[in-house]
């Protein structure tokens, strides 16, 4: 057993649902107890889908366990095919149904349906959501793709985009446009919006563009091996990677192509003097391996940040992430333990986090700004506007995304100069972020924070649970004057200043921190 507070990934059958929900004309019959239907709301609420996920659950109950859950599954299967009339079905079990060993694949086979039945083996107690999506897509491709001639013009398939993916909808559109600029047509996009009939046509493309290795790599490898389709390895996130991706496509197709960079703004935005304040901002990256690796390069080379830590929650990507971290002179954090990520961030005290919604919460608690760059997703990650993170427009979007959480250049200086202005004080946060509370006149007693019990659905608005004061290493004491001086330092660097000063004092064997100690430490760590 493993004690878990929050999870980065759901169970593997949720991964299968991401594939099924992305597709059209496919239905998923899932052997699962009642309650597992909660997963529908991920799609209807977080992603605002306007239809139910194409999933029929058997929703067995305790009383069914004594009788015949196998018949229940067969009936659900037959009913679903009659009611929804899919071109193919996928069948499988959730964690509980796996334990009762009914063999959904065999049962569905036995009822003699006229459409393809694709059985899924997703070990719920070993693997997670990304594996579930990747494996499901592989099985669909294996069962449905048909050998055929290549298309007359040069075409590619775009692989890996699913439901509930981070910006998949817009990435696919951006990359489709980029390929079109290069004179390359798109044969099939899959799983997103593909039908089983489209899957059959996959081998007509000349090569595959793999946008999301987490959810599409097994299928891409299988297609390479069985249909001789090479696939792209570079994820086109950031300007440099997009240009590398284009070079890779040119290499695969053997066709040189001119392309249009007129819409690309990031390079100038990043070079313009206003961006000087971004120089050396210390950032920590965490998310799925592919996004983290691509974004780390972009953060360092295109934004001028200093990457102080990076890691991923999906162990499948541990090896390349470790290698890249090493290249950055870092050690990668490979874990799906949210509390471990939190303590790492706390000890690194970066100036910004590039992470998932989970890190956004960590940042909120620690007072560190965060830009979301990866799944797991939240309703906020499905903006109404067009906002890819891939290709040239994706680079523009990322520039905005990465500066938005920060206090801007001149404002940063003003906050430092006039720290105690009653309206323009640092506790108000960055001026372009609305909704900050006015400066409290006096701190209320910390003990009983008014938590409106049961209004959890708006939990973000609730105050954080009070955290005990950090024990200062070696019992070093802050003198009152120094503590006051520390409070004059703007909030976005205060944590770093505190930590640096304490480390400095510990190294020097000091028992007390005075104003002098604070400024000696500042000089010591000056960069």
């Amino acid at each position, binding site marked *: *057993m493993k004690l878990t507070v929050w999870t980065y990934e759901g169970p593997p059958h949720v991964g299968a649902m991401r594939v099924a929900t992305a597709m059209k004309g496919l239905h998923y019959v899932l052997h699962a107890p*009642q309650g597992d239907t909660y997963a529908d*709301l991920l799609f209807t609420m977080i992603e605002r889908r306007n239809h139910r996920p194409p999933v029929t659950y058997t929703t067995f109950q305790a009383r069914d366990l004594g009788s015949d859950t196998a018949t229940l599954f067969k009936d659900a299967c037959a009913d679903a095919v009659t009611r929804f009339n899919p071109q193919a079905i996928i069948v499988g079990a959730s964690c509980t149904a796996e*334990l009762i060993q009914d063999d959904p694949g065999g049962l569905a086979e036995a009822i003699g349906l006229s459409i393809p039945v694709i059985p899924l083996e997703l070990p*719920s107690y070993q693997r997670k959501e990304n594996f579930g999506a990747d494996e499901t897509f592989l099985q669909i491709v294996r069962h449905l793709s048909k050998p055929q001639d290549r298309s007359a013009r040069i075409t590619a398939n775009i692989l890996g985009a699913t439901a509930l993916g981070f910006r998949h909808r817009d990435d696919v559109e951006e990359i489709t446009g980029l390929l079109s600029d290069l004179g390359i047509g798109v044969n099939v996009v899959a799983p997103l919006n593909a039908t089983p009939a489209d899957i059959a046509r996959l081998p007509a493309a000349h090569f595959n563009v793999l946008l999301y290795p987490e959810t599409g790599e097994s299928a891409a490898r299988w297609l390479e091996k069985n249909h001789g389709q090479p696939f792209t390895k570079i994820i086109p996130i950031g300007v440099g990677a997009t240009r590398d991706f284009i070079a890779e496509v040119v290499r695969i197709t053997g066709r040189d192509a001119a392309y249009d960079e007129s819409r690309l703004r990031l390079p100038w935005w990043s070079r313009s003097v206003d961006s000087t304040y971004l120089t050396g901002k210390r950032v920590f990256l965490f998310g799925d391996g592919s996004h983290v690796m691509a974004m780390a390069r972009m953060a360092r080379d295109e934004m001028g940040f200093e990457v102080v830590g990076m890691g991923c929650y999906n162990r499948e990507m541990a090896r390349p992430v470790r290698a890249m971290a090493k290249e950055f002179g870092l050690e990668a954090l490979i874990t799906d333990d949210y509390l471990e990520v939190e303590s790492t961030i706390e000890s690194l005290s970066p100036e910004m986090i590039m992470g998932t919604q989970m890190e956004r919460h960590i940042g909120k608690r620690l007072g560190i700004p965060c830009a979301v760059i990866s799944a797991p997703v939240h309703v906020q990650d499905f903006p109404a506007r067009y906002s890819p993170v891939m290709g040239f427009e994706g680079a523009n979007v990322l520039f905005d995304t990465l500066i938005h959480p920060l206090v801007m250049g001149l404002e940063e200086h003003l906050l430092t100069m006039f720290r105690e202005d009653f309206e323009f004080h640092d506790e108000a946060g960055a001026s372009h972020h609305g909704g900050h509370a006015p400066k409290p006149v006096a701190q209320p007693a910390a003990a009983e924070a008014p938590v409106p019990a049961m209004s959890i*659905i708006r939990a973000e608005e609730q105050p954080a649970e009070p955290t005990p004061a950090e024990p200062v290493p070696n019992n070093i004491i802050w003198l009152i004057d120094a503590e006051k001086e520390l409070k004059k330092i703007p909030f976005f660097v205060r944590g770093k200043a505190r930590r640096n000063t304490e480390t400095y004092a510990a190294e020097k064997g000091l028992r007390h921190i005075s104003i002098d100690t604070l400024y000696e430490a500042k000089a010591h760590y000056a960069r």
Partner: protein
Amino acid sequence: MTALTPPMNGGCRTAPVLKERGQREVFCGLTGIIWLHRKMQDAFFLVVGSRTCAHLLQSAAGVMIFAEPRFGTAILEETDLAGMADAQKEVDRVVAQLLDRRPDIRQLFLVGSCPSEVIKIDLHRAAERLNAQHAPHVRVLNYSGSGIETTFTQGEDAALASMVPVLKETEARELLIVGALPDVVEDQMLGMLRAMGIGPIHCLPAHRIDQETAVGPNTVFALVQPFLGDTHAALERRGARHLPAPFPFGEEGTTAWLSVIAAEFDVPASLFSQVTDAPRARARKAIAQAAETLNGKSVFFFPDSQLEIPLARFLTRECGMTAIEVGSPYIHDALVGPDLDLLPAGPVISEGQDVDKQLARARAARADLTVCGLGLANPLEAEGLSTKWAIELVFTPVHFYEQAGDLAGLFSRPLRRKSILKLEAAE
């Protein structure tokens, strides 16, 4: 005091019930942990289950709560299933790890899930052993929130029922109020009952573990939630007596609920009016505003929280709506009987679910407002129906007089929104 007039056409108590079995689009009982862990401030809920359980709790919270919550999941792994690890020892290890991390915890609930029930991990035994080990600092109890046994709000029922056997014995004549209420609502309720001179009063669950909440043959209890069937039975087994009443939703429901308790404690009619007249008038006024939108409209309830019958009673009698179907996961006559008596005859009363058949009925009925779960709301909106997602009814203060207007507002807002949005071209 205030006897409510039953409907002219007879109520729904004797109406035939459409019982369905099929795919059920509902949460499991683990969901109750989301509000219970905020209500009970010294309690931790440890689910022994799978990654799915952890994912459900995270998703059902609507957002991920950024503070470290007072719940977690001991996720079963391959070694636990293959029998290579002794489940009891594993539970001990995880609990020790947890209590070490959270020394502030005074009550620990071991919560069973679908997988732990199927592989028959005996959490009752584990709780007894751990309780002996950690008493008196921590009290360890267990219940099941599994989907194979419980639906959504039944999780709270199972949790409260597990607390009843360990309540102290008392001979005193006391009133016990049963069901988790938001703090502000609980305070209002206690204020009114105390103003009527009723006491001592205790609440189950209390904010913190205490020595005062007790039960015995002279205890009378009132339920504030209609889904507490097992807790009701457990309290009766301890000798306590239930005060059946309509549930305190809306002005009528609140008045009826209070008057049953007032009668039991011989509160004079004049005192009852003195305490309730002003809030009753406020509630009527607040409801009237929302009712302008709701009056004459039809409503269709999918089964979700078991609040459906009392809410249908409120909407039909106080807001002028017509109920087409009132679905509930379970119908306990001993609990919702008084509400069924008052609900005007007419709607289909359904128990259980076959979601695709019920969706077909909802589409045919095209009610002005369809009350349903989160998985169905947006798809039905996309088909042009107005919906109210039901989980909000459980997560929002809606009981008693001062919230009656808010309760009506939850139903009127989707209709008002639909009427104010102008998304077509003006010409």
